[in-house]
């Protein structure tokens, strides 16, 4: 579970994000909404341990993130968090398999082809393993990016505007895949979006608009 208390992120005098209290139980699926610039991405970065908050406390799966040294935060993130971004950012010159291996390597996990094949096949892109990322279609890239986020079996799956650039059908499929993968693996899913199309899909919602 994830507990956020009195979280505040400031840049100079500007408060970019303020979350007084937020609790997420394990395996819940949440939507984080609000207009652009309300701090949705910032919240995700803080939860991923990429950004240290100006104030407050975050405890995720028993770990107080604000107490982690930067190097410990990197290690914790690798082992615990999977991230899917709006722009998918696969490493273009590497093959699909190498992109997933990179995720295993950076998370200090054993480089396990069986886990890679499993992640790719549940997302329906097992046949693309040997293709270079730059040769894939947008839809295929989306699936590979999700596969990369889940290949290490994260307990926390974060998605930042995963549907913003997609048409209706693709947006729905993307959310289906994320939600399906999170449910199948028992991971907690947090989706940050301002996309009205996906709102109805989620029972839990955190609204950051002020």
């Amino acid at each position, binding site marked *: 579970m994830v507990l956020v208390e009195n979280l505040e992120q400031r840049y100079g005098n500007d408060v970019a994000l303020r979350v007084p209290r937020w609790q997420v139980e394990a395996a819940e699926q949440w939507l984080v909404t609000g207009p652009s610039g309300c701090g949705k991405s910032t919240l995700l970065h803080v939860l991923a341990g990429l950004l240290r908050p100006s104030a407050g406390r975050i405890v995720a799966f028993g770990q107080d993130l604000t107490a982690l040294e930067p190097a410990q935060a990197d290690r914790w993130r690798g082992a615990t968090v999977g991230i899917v971004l709006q722009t998918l950012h696969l*490493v273009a010159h590497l093959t699909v398999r190498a992109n997933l291996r*990179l995720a295993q390597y950076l998370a200090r996990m054993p480089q396990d082809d069986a886990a890679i094949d499993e992640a790719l096949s549940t997302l329906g892109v097992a046949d693309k393993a040997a293709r270079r990322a730059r040769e894939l279609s947008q839809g295929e890239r989306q699936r590979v990016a999700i596969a990369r986020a889940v290949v290490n079996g994260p307990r926390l799956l974060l998605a930042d505007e995963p549907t913003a650039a997609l048409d209706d059908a693709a947006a729905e499929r993307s959310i289906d895949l994320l939600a399906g993968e999170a449910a199948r693996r028992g991971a907690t899913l947090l989706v940050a979006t301002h996309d009205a199309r996906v709102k109805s899909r989620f029972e839990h919602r955190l609204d950051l608009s002020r």
Partner: protein
Amino acid sequence: MNLASLSAGYLRARPLQTALSLLLLSLGVATIILLLLVVNQLEERMTRDAQGIDLVVGAKGSPMQIILSGIYQLDVPTGNIPLAAVRALQKNSLVKKVMPLGMGDSWRGYRIVGAGHEYPAHYGATLAAGRLWQAPMEAVLGADVARRTGYGVGGRFVGVHGVGGEGEEHTEFPYTVVGVLARTGTVLDRLVLTPMESVWRVHEHEREEEAEEAKAAGRTQERKSPEPEVTVLLVQYASPLAAATLPREINSQTALQAASPAYETARLFRIAGVGVEALRAFAVVLIAAAALSVFIALYTALEERRYDLAIIRTLGGSPGQLFGMLLGEAAILAAASAAIGLVLGHAFAWALGLWLHAQQQYPVTGAVFLGEEVLVLVAAVGIALLAALPPAWSAYRTDVSQILATG
């Protein structure tokens, strides 16, 4: 997957950029290695050839030319000097050893040198086959001469007039090979040795012919000195005192010129040193350009790859790993360049050696390794890594959250 294969992957992903850096750095390394090899070997050879020779006496002319022709057998001699000069020097108490040499003919580009047995003995030469000369028109071949011509004991050949190898053949005076010297690593390797009397006999005959021709043409020929001549004298002092007085004493005689090998060789290296310095500067420019290209390549890469860098961080990678990745690219590039440069440098030296050998010039080989080469390689890798430091540091300081927020 690891950092090294990640770095290598990025290098492969931009082959032109990588090839340019590789080319510049390896050419720079190769040039410096070539210079090291050539200068080192020439200095060593020249020092060995001049060992134990304190003074060279020849006909009046350029001292440098006397040294180059007398010791190294590279330049043409300044002329001949009377045999009386040998006797005078031999009587001088400041002189320990006088080795007269007679030159003027060659065989297939190798000089035929009239000398006494003390000349090969001076360089510690031993016989690989046969014996030393005992009579006129007997010849002993240096190791290179024997190898390149394929001649051995019992072979017969005729010399041609002039040291260049393009002159008239002395067909009526054939030489017989009676011995072959073992390799000495000195000037002897590319000489044909024979008693002084052979040289005298060949050239006396030539003078007679000239005189007859002159008589036939109705001119009166001045009678040349009946006394035989030699070309240069290699002199070893009996005491260091000789250096102060002997050269001056000799130079005061109108026909003779004394030249100090130590002084002239040093002068030669100073002159040649300008060229060596210029080449070395060129190599340094190449390496600096290579370092710049590594720097630019990585800095451009930072911009192109900012999302890759961010993604590596989101996947659990540390700033140190980003730093290591960029430094790793430079390290792989530099190590490959150093290896290619090392091989190229030796290949160039080998090719130069072949060419020089074909010219019967100083031998140079690519088959030796010097301690300094390791320094060159380490320096090249060091410079490339240094050039990679600023971009690597930028990568280290990447603000992932900010990059992700903008894209």
